[in-house]
């Protein structure tokens, strides 16, 4: 595969921000590896992008909570002779609860998906990038990873951890031409925030400098830029896409 069609792997690609990133990258000429649990949604997206942009997409459905999920994904890539150019660690779950109301399962699940999977997927992807002395990793952090949020002790801890990971990996992998950045979305209208009612959405809109709520596409456009050669001197950064939200 040539750089005419670089290949990006996106976790959590079946919906929300992951799906939007897949759509934007496809429009920019990328071929894609789409990873998520829901194979039906992934196949639908793959067909849609193939029709729109002639995108080649490899679909791999897996539960990223499984400890060997990353190994399975990268074995699949090896079997299909796919070398990726970018990894978008997007998959994540948010389970709001005050710490006293947080169960062991909620801790394990959020740490597992939001942090452990990012570590194992990045470790596997690095081999692809080292061979080329080039590559791009984007970690999906969050505004609450920077500022915290009530009822989000575990979620915010995992998203803060991604910021530390981004800074460390950018230093570790920079000499090999591999860039690592994080995106910190604010309050976006996605499936993750669908649990909130209109009154909450309005409160968040008014807390935003631009007086509007963001969309998954707003995040996807930044991800596409960070993957591109236009961002070739950008690494170790945590970039907010939040409309100036104050929390």
């Amino acid at each position, binding site marked *: 595969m040539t750089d005419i069609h670089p290949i990006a792997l996106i976790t959590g690609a079946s919906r929300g921000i992951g799906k939007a990133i897949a759509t934007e990258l496809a429009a920019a000429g990328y071929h894609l590896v789409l990873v998520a649990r829901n194979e039906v949604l992934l196949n639908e997206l793959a067909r849609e992008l193939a029709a729109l942009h002639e995108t080649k997409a490899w679909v791999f459905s897996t539960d990223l909570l499984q400890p060997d999920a990353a190994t399975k994904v990268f074995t699949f890539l090896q079997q299909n002779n796919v070398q990726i150019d970018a990894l978008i660690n997007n998959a994540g779950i948010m389970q709001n609860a005050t710490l006293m109301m947080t169960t062991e399962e909620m801790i394990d699940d959020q740490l597992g998906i939001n942090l452990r999977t990012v570590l194992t997927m990045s*470790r596997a992807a*690095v*081999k692809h990038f*080292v*061979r080329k002395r080039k590559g791009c990793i984007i970690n999906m952090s969050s505004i609450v990873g920077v500022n915290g949020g009530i009822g989000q002790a575990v979620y915010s801890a995992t998203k803060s951890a991604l910021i530390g990971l981004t800074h460390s990996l950018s230093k*570790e992998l920079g*000499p*090999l031409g591999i860039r690592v950045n994080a995106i910190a979305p604010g309050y976006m209208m996605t499936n993750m925030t669908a649990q909130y009612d209109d009154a909450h959405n309005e409160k968040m809109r008014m807390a935003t400098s631009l007086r509007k709520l963001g969309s998954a596409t707003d995040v996807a456009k930044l991800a596409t830029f960070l993957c591109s050669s236009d961002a070739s001197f950008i690494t170790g950064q945590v970039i907010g896409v939040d409309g100036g939200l104050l929390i």
Partner: protein
Amino acid sequence: MTDAFTDALMIDKEQVHDALKYQSIPNWDSISHMVLITNIEAAFDISLGTDDVIAMSTVAIAKEIIAKHGISFS
């Protein structure tokens, strides 16, 4: 095998001997170790697990690890 080391560590082939040890010379650091691993994987068409990546601390051990994948050194 020797080429994988000379390319990754940017050293002469005369410097590649069984006793050569990770971090015993400035050129075999944690960064070049990553390059070495991918060079060996490419040269022998094998995939090394994390345990092997960590264990590969000398040229001799590298040979032992590669041999586990059915490759022999005469």
